[in-house]
């Protein structure tokens, strides 16, 4: 969406830094905006050698939808885990599940594994990059196939469209 230029090699990081700076200052004055722009340009350049190539956001509105779904799912996740903790009669059925990745971009994989950790009853335990799979620990699962399909349909497909990879 935003092309990377020589002055701003990572435009989204720059944008994020400016926003974080303004939120930290809690004001939108000209001085703060200028300082934010200076930081937003200087910090990515100073740390450039640590950054992987960042993918472009192809579908920004889908990203907004993804974040809203994620927030809703986090609330559901909290409720589900709390219910499991409090129901003493129900024995949880934990499982290790190997999830096959179809995305290849490092940044998209990071977003996906973070999503898995934040959502209902699953934690990404180990990334196996040479196999293209993620080991997931699920807290209470009956059907591991259904879990894999759900993660694929709900999170991986939108991510694939958002980053176009």
């Amino acid at each position, binding site marked *: 969406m935003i092309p990377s230029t020589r002055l701003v090699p990572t435009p989204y990081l720059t944008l994020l830094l400016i926003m974080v700076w303004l939120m930290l200052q809690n004001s939108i004055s000209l001085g703060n905006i200028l300082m934010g722009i200076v930081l937003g340009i200087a910090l990515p350049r100073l740390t450039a050698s640590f950054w992987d190539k960042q993918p472009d956001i192809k579908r920004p509105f889908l990203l907004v939808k993804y974040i809203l779904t994620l927030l809703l799912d986090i609330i559901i996740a909290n409720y589900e885990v709390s219910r499991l*903790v409090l129901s*003493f009669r129900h024995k949880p059925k934990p*499982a290790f599940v190997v999830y096959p990745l179809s995305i290849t971009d490092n940044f998209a994989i990071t977003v996906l594994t973070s999503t898995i950790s934040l959502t209902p009853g699953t934690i990404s335990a180990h990334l196996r990059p040479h196999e293209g799979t993620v080991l997931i620990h699920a807290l209470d699962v009956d059907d591991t196939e259904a879990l894999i399909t759900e993660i694929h349909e709900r999170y991986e497909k939108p991510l694939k469209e958002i980053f176009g990879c």
Partner: protein
Amino acid sequence: MDLRFALEVAVSALMIAGGIFAVIGAMGMVRFRDFYMRLHGPTKSTTLGVGCVLLASMSFFWLKNGHPSLQDMLITLFLFITTPVSAHLLTMSGLHHKLPSAPETKGQPYELDDEDDIARN
């Protein structure tokens, strides 16, 4: 009942809800039986617990100063970025030390196999 009182009640309710979620997350640590299951409590319930407290703090200062404080939203952002990373690192070190999983766990990843280690060495 005036509006101010109603808002104060809402802030208090959020604080209490946040506290309850944090306690449930801590209870998960005690109740579950292996390392991997224990991780689920702190990564999930605590997120909502802290979220509720931050929401309460944000609306309180909105009420007090007349404008919302955005710093609280930043805490939420940083929390959502760092929680999965620390959970992932903890699980990875757990796998590295081959911590046993509960016997009813389905599936045995090769990270936990002893034979695999022998074959590699």
